[in-house]
């Protein structure tokens, strides 16, 4: 279930080994999963793996690489950039011979354009930042500190920012301010309304929902079945 893949370094130095969770039985359909980010990654981790278990049962391989700087990765999070994560997901897709891509929330921002697939409940960069900045201003206010969204945005652009415990570098911060998910050829949006029930990223604490996982996996399996030669 746990494997590794080599993420090529942008400067041509030695690649860094990264971990992935995979249901890999060498079957024809292989779905690369680009996970949700930061706080939402925690809230949606179990849901994501539950969807992968169901895909496995439906005869579909799935591959969930760590984003460099996250989970067990040895790369420092504050050095990560949006462009770097995009390149990593392309590299992971190639190294793992993915045939499709499923993105979760902000994972849509790093979907390899060369793979057909689905953007589940895609989240934009500005909305992601807005939520995290707001959480920080609320907790600052509780602590009696005067921090404004505008001030934090300026600081983030300039020198990066720690939001919700996540170190976001200045380059990543600036990229996220304008990052919108875009559907490449063969990719389509899967809105939460197609899955039913409230999105689990809204939940104050991590949770799971078997019916939602069933529905998402079934939609993907149907879709792959329809497009099979």
């Amino acid at each position, binding site marked *: 279930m746990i494997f590794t893949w080599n993420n090529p370094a942008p400067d041509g130095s030695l690649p860094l080994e990264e971990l992935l969770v995979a249901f890999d039985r060498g079957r024809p359909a292989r779905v690369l999963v680009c996970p949700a980010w930061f706080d939402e990654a925690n809230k949606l981790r179990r849901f994501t793996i539950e969807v992968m278990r169901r895909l496995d049962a439906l005869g579909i391989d799935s591959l969930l690489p760590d984003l460099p700087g996250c989970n067990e990765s040895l790369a420092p999070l504050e050095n990560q950039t949006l462009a770097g994560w995009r390149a990593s997901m392309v590299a992971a897709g190639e190294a793992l011979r993915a045939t499709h891509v499923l993105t979760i929330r902000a994972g849509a921002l790093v979907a390899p354009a060369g793979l057909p697939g689905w953007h589940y409940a895609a989240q934009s960069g500005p909305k992601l930042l807005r939520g*995290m900045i707001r959480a920080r201003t609320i907790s600052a206010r509780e602590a009696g500190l005067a921090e404004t969204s505008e001030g934090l945005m300026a600081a983030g652009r300039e020198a990066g920012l720690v939001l919700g415990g996540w170190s976001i570098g200045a380059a990543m911060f600036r990229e996220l301010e304008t990052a919108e998910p875009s559907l490449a050829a063969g990719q389509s949006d899967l809105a939460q309304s197609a899955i039913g029930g409230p999105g689990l990223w809204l*939940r*104050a604490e991590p949770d799971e929902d078997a019916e939602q996982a069933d529905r998402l996996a079934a939609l993907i399996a149907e879709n792959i079945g329809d497009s099979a030669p």
Partner: protein
Amino acid sequence: MTTLPNIDSEAGEAALDTELKALIADVLGLDPEQASAFGPESGLFGHLPELDSMAVAGLLTEMEDRLGIVIEDDDVDGEMLETYGGLLAFARAKLDPR
């Protein structure tokens, strides 16, 4: 963006109440029936341990999306977040600023 009827009416008020309760149910993982028991004095931020700043931020962002409002830094204060009644009054004022 917003599907709420005119909130001057009683039906509009009830729709806003239902929408807001549904939202809190989504955040707290409650059944809609449980959330319908929220009253004006029901405690939120500072009363429910799972409702931390990250969860409150998510709640406010979702309120913006579902109600079609924009919530500024200065709007967010202890009073508006402390009780269900405070949050409802805030949403009502945002939707009908007269």
